[in-house]
């Protein structure tokens, strides 16, 4: 939660700095974001590789657990395709790339900015922040109307950290492990899917 706040603060500070033309001189000569992204991806890979908990979870819970992240992926892409088709505001590829953020707004918006455009990067940032906020607000209602898995799929990748408390409170403690696993799987998939969608 604290990190989400910092992330947004850094972003807003950047917007204010940029808007006020108060830009460090070294930024005008070089754009370090490409290399910062490379470093970030290497680090993300290391943290995934160093974490054995997801493998242990699959062993203990069985493959049935994989159905939940699969439902999130299929549902998100279907829903995004529907609204892109209805509004025509974006291309299918752009819509799917934003959707493939699955609430992981920091990493997805960074990759989309680098691979596509700053404008779509902003859309990805806002859309995935909104996804997290809606989940936080509506998780209790989702459980009552659509079942205990609904807030987990709605949370996307955030079901392992920022939205885990509300999911545990709404769906019940026995769903915390499903939420955790779901978040881990999607967190690993976000950079891969976003990159693949924008490059294939």
């Amino acid at each position, binding site marked *: 939660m604290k990190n989400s706040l910092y*992330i947004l603060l*850094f*972003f*807003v*500070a*950047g*917007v*204010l*700095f*940029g808007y*006020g033309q108060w830009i460090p001189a070294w930024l005008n000569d070089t754009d370090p974001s490409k290399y*910062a992204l*490379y*470093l970030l*991806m*290497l*680090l993300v*890979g*290391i*943290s*995934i*590789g*160093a974490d*054995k908990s997801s493998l242990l979870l699959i062993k203990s819970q069985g493959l049935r657990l994989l*159905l*939940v992240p699969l*439902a999130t992926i299929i*549902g*998100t892409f279907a*829903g*995004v395709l*529907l*609204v892109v088709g209805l*509004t025509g505001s*974006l291309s299918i590829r752009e*819509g799917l790339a*934003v959707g493939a953020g*699955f609430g992981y707004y*920091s990493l997805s918006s*960074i990759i989309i*900015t680098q691979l596509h455009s*700053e*404008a779509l990067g902003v859309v*990805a*940032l*806002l*859309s*995935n922040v*909104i*996804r997290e906020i*809606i*989940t936080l607000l509506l998780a209790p209602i989702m459980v009552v109307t*659509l*079942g*205990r898995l*609904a807030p987990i799929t*709605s949370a*996307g990748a955030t079901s392992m950290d920022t939205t885990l408390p509300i999911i545990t409170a709404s769906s019940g403690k026995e769903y915390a492990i499903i939420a955790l696993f779901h978040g881990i799987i999607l967190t690993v998939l976000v*950079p891969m899917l976003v*990159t693949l969608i924008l490059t294939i």
Partner: protein
Amino acid sequence: MAEILILMFGGMIIGHVISSRKKLVNVLEKLIMWSIFLLLFLLGIAIGRNPEIMQALGTLGLTAMILSLGGIGGSVIMAYVLWRIFFREKKSSHEE
């Protein structure tokens, strides 16, 4: 942009090798947060200095909201289907 995926997979192998060195892994994970802070600060600057994007923020926000609703809507419907077919049934079969 295959570099991104290659770096990530390379990182996974490195991570697997150094997974027992908890302190090192912790430091690297802190570095992740700082890289994210830096990159989003830079994204903010790029947006703030770009008048076209600043003017379009409202439209971009609306597009973002529509995509969020589509993504969440599809996800919770799938969750409902999965719950009805798989998870809830399993629970009732336990009770039998």
